[in-house]
């Protein structure tokens, strides 16, 4: 019975998660209307490490405090009942054939070392949590890989029917397609750099469930580690009556590494309260309840290993930072951050690489970095104008950012923020280099007074015939670097006008013009 309730609860939270994920998409208005980042807001690991690394308090994380309080009293119920990644692991793990032997490896301490590593490095301003935080990882994997994949596969299937154009059948398929479009398909096919890489890692995490059920949750998840520590003195505990005959059924069913077959060795920090042991105990000897005085096993992480994790966390900070990228003028010129992004150092202290901004970006222009921002900034957002520009009147990325790495901007403010500057490649520009009329960059330039203007010249063509040409020029004061010109430049391949980060408002040093 408990199992059914648990599965229903898990399913409900997974559905809420997926539904909010689907709502992280523009419908034309500048508001989404739903609290799409609520799972990130409720994530205590992101909450604590972001406070450590940014040294700022976040009010939006009130839900994380709720989860912390709940864990202190009830234990890791979040892992067993709520966490959407846990639920997926649970589901995949149920495919695995049960063996009579209990777990082969017992690395449950490892997740605590990951947690210590992340906490120490974030204390010294290096925020790497997002890479392995389960909520962040899940949203990123869904945004960059799973959802584009599902969308591509679905569209390709229905396109095949559409192109085959078999009478009647095509009507049916188009009808189904239109419904799917309304329910869960994206407005347009999303494309992301590294989607295969991110998707492979996600597949790996799911696949580990076949090695051992909930492998990730037991051994790797740093959020599980944090909640484990918090649940050390939880009231909700497990007792075993004298009816127990050591059959070991509970140990085989255990979804954590809680060693439930020995009452006194039961590790409450490893229990995720799935209560399967209670459900299936043949003698009904297991009981969960508020048993403050019930003894639990100690938590021995090993002094040397803890010290080792702390040192690794310490060493990681300078190791990640000894890159020339931090020097002005050396940074990747194509590292164009979304509008409202904090100054780069501050930005990296907060960005948890969740991919919310990339998911919501209406032009698909926000892409994950690989090493453009250093290893520290892997999977942080970068605008690639050739894929998609920054829409002049859109502020969605700042609205969904859970940590304020991208500030939420009001429209008048957003319209003034420069994320870079456009410059013309006179060697490729049609009017400049080839005496051929083209005005696309000027036409699309979105600033109220266009940042692109024309210099009218008389130019001779090969036959010596004179013609009037409009040569585009960029007004560096007015240009905001949105990249619409680059996105629409008809000179394909390497565009004749392109944006680089120089001039971005957020930086004091990466400037071109005298202030």
């Amino acid at each position, binding site marked *: 019975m408990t199992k059914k309730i648990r599965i229903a609860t898990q399913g409900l939270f997974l559905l809420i998660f997926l539904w909010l994920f689907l709502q992280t998409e523009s419908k034309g208005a500048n508001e989404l209307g739903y609290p799409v980042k609520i799972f990130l807001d409720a994530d205590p690991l992101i909450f604590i490490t972001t406070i450590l690394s940014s040294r700022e308090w976040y009010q939006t994380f009130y839900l994380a405090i709720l989860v912390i309080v709940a864990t202190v009293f009830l234990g890791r119920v979040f892992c067993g009942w709520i966490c959407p990644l846990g639920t997926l692991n649970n589901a995949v793990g149920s495919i695995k054939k049960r063996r009579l032997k209990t777990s082969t490896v017992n690395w449950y301490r490892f997740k605590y070392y990951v947690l210590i590593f992340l906490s120490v490095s974030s204390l010294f301003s290096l925020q790497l949590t997002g890479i392995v935080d389960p909520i962040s990882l899940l949203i990123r994997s869904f945004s960059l890989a799973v959802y584009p994949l599902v969308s591509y596969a679905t569209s390709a299937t229905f396109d095949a029917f559409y192109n085959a154009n078999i009478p009647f059948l095509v009507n049916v398929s188009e009808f189904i397609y239109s419904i799917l479009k309304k329910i869960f398909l994206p407005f347009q096919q999303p494309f992301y750099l590294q989607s295969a890489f991110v998707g492979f890692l996600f597949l790996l995490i799911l696949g580990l469930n076949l090695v051992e059920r909930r492998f990730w949750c037991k051994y790797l998840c740093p959020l599980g580690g944090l909640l484990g520590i918090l649940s050390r003195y939880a009231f909700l505990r497990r007792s075993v009556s004298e009816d127990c005959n050591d059959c070991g059924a509970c140990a085989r069913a255990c979804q954590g590494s809680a060693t439930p077959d020995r009452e006194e060795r039961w590790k409450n920090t490893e229990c995720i309260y799935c209560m399967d042991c209670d459900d299936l105990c043949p003698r009904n000897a297991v009981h969960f309840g508020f048993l403050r005085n019930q003894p639990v096993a100690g938590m021995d992480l090993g002094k040397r290993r803890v010290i080792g994790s702390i040192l690794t966390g310490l060493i990681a900070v300078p190791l990640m930072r000894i890159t020339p990228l931090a020097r002005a003028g050396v940074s990747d010129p194509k590292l164009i951050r979304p509008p409202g992004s904090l100054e780069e150092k501050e930005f990296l202290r907060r960005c948890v690489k969740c991919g919310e901004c990339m998911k919501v970006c209406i032009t698909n222009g926000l892409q994950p970095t690989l090493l453009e921002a250093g290893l520290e900034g892997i999977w942080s957002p970068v605008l690639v104008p050739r894929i998609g520009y920054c829409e002049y009147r859109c502020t969605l990325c700042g609205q969904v950012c859970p940590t304020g790495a991208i500030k939420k901007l009001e429209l008048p403010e957003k319209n003034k923020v420069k994320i870079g500057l456009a410059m013309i490649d006179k060697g490729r520009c049609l009017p400049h280099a080839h005496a051929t009329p083209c005005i696309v960059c000027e036409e699309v330039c979105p600033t109220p*007074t266009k940042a692109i203007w024309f210099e009218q010249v008389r130019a001779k063509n090969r036959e010596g015939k004179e013609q009037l040409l409009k040569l585009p020029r960029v007004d560096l004061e007015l240009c905001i670097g949105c990249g619409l010109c680059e996105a629409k430049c008809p000179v394909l391949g390497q565009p004749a006008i392109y944006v680089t980060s120089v001039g971005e408002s957020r930086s004091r040093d990466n400037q071109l013009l005298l202030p």
Partner: protein
Amino acid sequence: MKRRDFIKAAIAAGVTLTFPGNTGMIFSSLEAAEKVDIAVARGVSPAGITKAAIDGLGGIKRFISKGDIVVVKPNIGWDRMPEYAATTNPEVVSTVVRLCYEAGAKQVKVFDRTVVDPRRCYKQSGIADAASAVGGIVSFVDDRKFREVKLPGVALKSWPFYTEAMEADKVINIPIAKTHGLSTLTLGMKNWMGIMGGSRGRIHQKMDGSLVDVAMFIKPTLIILDAVRILTANGPQGGSLSDVKQLNTVIAGTDQVAVDAYGATLFGLKGADLGYVIAGHKAGLGTMDLSKLKIKRIAA
């Protein structure tokens, strides 16, 4: 659409244009016996002047028959609100949709291939909401529905066009009058870019010829030029209210060149200042000489 079908459709469209004296016209009114080329209506209500301008040409029934599938093509190209005059006035669009249904149209479709994100353009321009409120079938452009069409043109030899526009019984063009960097002004003929697929940016290399080629191919039933507000600078996207001029005018006509030539006068220019108007005139698409046209002015 096969080429043969296209030709058939083109011929059919040509017939309606050449012989406007179909039944609707005969019964509509006797005062319209004198042929009006362009109707210009002025007044404070965009809906009122839109209807007045169409009535000035003989009423909607002259153009739309019972059972017609009609495409109404406004300019929804930009993520701008109506008061910025970068997109067609939503009330003008909804009025045309409503009139088409009143004339017995079976379906009235509204779409545009926008320049920036379609969701934002459709929503922020107010056109999607206004047109659906009166029953218009508002849809985003579906990339699969473009078909390559051979053009007997001078600048464009072939180009992908939107099938829903080509297969419709009647097409009504509802552009807004704006400035534009290369073509100086964007009026009716340039609005056809919204049913062109492919990499449209390239047509700017032979702008005037391309616009004429496309306009020759489309042959709208009716053109309604929205000049309720016009954009006088920083077009076609605009963004500053100081560039917007309120004219409270709607112009209706069936001659694409004539309507654009008249549109030029709103900006203090003449048809001869616009390359594509001259080219259209020369190609026999229409006439740019306003003195030879019967222009009816209506205060509504």
